[in-house]
């Protein structure tokens, strides 16, 4: 039998054969969804023709919970949103309250915040890189990623007493200065880390299998990404230069010299490259912050009971996942009237339907990984 007769169109069988679309349930307890995320995928053969995300399995009502706590008491709960990048969440919330209070944070506290923020960003990207590579099939990357992340968590433990959810900042500044010897350990980490990042790139960036699995997969164009309000490396992978640290500067970020890595094609590979390069930039920022560490107070002038003026404030930071925003409303009392979190994972997940349409079912897992979502933040 020759090939022509094997082909349904050649034999005229396409009209005669009945085909129909299959609906496939991915999750909610699938290891590649990184949490309780469920996707209803409509398939034509192996091609995805439609996709619907079903979320909310981890909804804990954090926004409602805050309304019955004081402004200070509400701080630690935001660590539980994105539990892989807890320090950054904390910065967003205390920053919003400080904005509403018109509170000046001392320069030294700002620099310490920048150091911890960027360490947390690297830790987040390392865990993401390890698990994402594992999803795509590169198992060894996970061990390297966890190893280096462990060093950062040790630094957190030494300074803040906690590894994962350290409740890093009080409203108005920071709690502690660097403990004795901490800076030396941190500098040693900064020296070793660039070589480790080179190793990751040797493992993946030039790896033929990795490139074939990620290049041209899950493409989203720049204008689509902006219209869907994506942010963070997911947006920058499409070549859009939007980084909150540069665009809406906060803390002491204007003092530091760093670049915003951009992708070109908006595919899984470019989003990967953006994050890996961001790690190098974060190291640059930490080095500058440690070198230029000013002297001064650790905390601004803030009373024990906080009563922001009646009104509202919207404050955003560049979290590891994207633009993390807090919209807080005060009625002039010691409890918040309303706290809303603009969660980058939640909004980035909106893009997945556009990215997956037309992709192969095997690539869906790679695309979910490339968005870097944490379901604690998606569902809040």
């Amino acid at each position: 039998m020759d090939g022509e007769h094997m082909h349904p169109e050649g034999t005229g069988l396409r009209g005669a054969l009945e085909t129909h679309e299959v609906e496939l349930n991915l999750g909610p307890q699938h290891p590649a969804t990184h949490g309780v995320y469920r996707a209803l995928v409509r398939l034509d053969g192996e091609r995805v023709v439609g996709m619907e995300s079903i979320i909310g399995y981890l909804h804990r009502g954090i926004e409602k919970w805050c309304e019955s706590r004081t402004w200070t008491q509400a701080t630690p709960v935001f660590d539980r949103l994105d539990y892989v990048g807890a320090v950054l969440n904390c910065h967003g919330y205390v920053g919003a309250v400080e904005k509403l209070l018109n509170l000046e944070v001392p320069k030294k506290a700002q620099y310490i915040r920048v150091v911890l923020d960027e360490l947390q960003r690297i830790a987040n990207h390392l865990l993401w890189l390890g698990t994402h590579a594992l999803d795509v099939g590169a198992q060894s990357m996970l061990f390297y990623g966890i190893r280096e992340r462990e060093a950062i968590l040790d630094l957190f433990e030494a300074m803040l007493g906690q590894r994962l959810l350290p409740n890093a900042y009080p409203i108005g500044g920071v709690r502690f200065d660097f403990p004795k010897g901490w800076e030396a350990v941190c500098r040693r980490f900064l020296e070793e880390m660039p070589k480790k990042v080179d190793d990751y790139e040797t493992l993946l960036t030039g790896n033929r299998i990795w490139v074939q699995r990620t290049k041209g997969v899950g493409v989203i164009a720049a204008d689509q990404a902006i219209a869907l309000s994506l942010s963070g490396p997911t947006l920058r992978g499409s070549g859009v230069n939007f980084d909150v640290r540069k665009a809406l500067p906060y803390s002491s970020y204007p003092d530091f010299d760093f670049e915003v890595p951009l992708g070109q094609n908006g595919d899984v590979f470019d989003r990967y490259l953006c994050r890996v390069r961001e790690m190098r930039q974060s190291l640059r920022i930490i080095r500058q912050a440690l070198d230029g560490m000013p002297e001064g107070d650790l905390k601004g002038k803030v009373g024990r009971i906080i009563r922001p003026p009646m009104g509202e404030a919207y404050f955003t930071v560049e979290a590891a996942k994207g633009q993390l925003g807090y919209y807080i409303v005060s009625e002039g009392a010691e409890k918040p009237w309303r706290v809303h979190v603009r969660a980058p994972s939640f909004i980035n997940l909106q893009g997945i339907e556009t990215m997956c349409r037309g992709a192969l079912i095997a690539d869906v897992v790679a695309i979910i990984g490339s968005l870097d979502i944490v379901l604690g933040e998606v569902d809040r």
Partner: protein
Amino acid sequence: MTDEIKAPGPPVPPPQAAGGEAAPAEKPAAAKPATPPAPKPPAGPKKWEPTGDAVPNAPAEALAERFGESVRGAKSPCGESAVLVDKAALVPVLAFLRDDPRCGMNYLSDLTGAHYPINDKKFEVVYHLYSMEKGHSLRVKVQLDDGEPCPSATGVWPGADWMEREAHDMLGIVFEGHPGLKVILLPDDFEGHPLRKEFPLGGAQEEMIRANRYGKPVYLPDDVEEARKIVEEQRHGR
């Protein structure tokens, strides 16, 4: 229970069912009020209104020029630019902000709502916009009555889709023209909108757990008043 009658007599070992809590039998009426206090109006001002001054910026001025009366500057205590828009003009205003070269607000950063039971208009929907070209931000607010639908922004920014679904879940605001306004974060059979101020915190089920910590579990009826009655009975050892 029979132990209430025996109470004035000589001390008897308390029966098992009371769990050692003999005191409530003596003062059933003087105990805590039977129903949790009704949501009391906030003690402070009569109306929620931001303090501070209105801070106009370029897009706010362009809006005032184009739409006149239907767009007003809104105050902010921390120097953020904000405008209050009439509901009828909302979608044209958002489209203008996106398309006009002076504004260029191409990025919808956030969309949410808030509930102000003390205000005349009880709900606010809040849009946070950003211009990637010009670098300016603007907050757009629209005020609604309870049950009044809000025009959907999904025609202007597709990214408003999930944010509007979330606001619908949490506050019960209906977005007219939304392509599929269904639950997103809450369970499918959830009743009520948790971020409304009248939504009970804790609720009867949690009260029950506190009152009956070591007893056997009791399944409460759906009706809140009925449930509260059972909880109170349980708490006072009947």
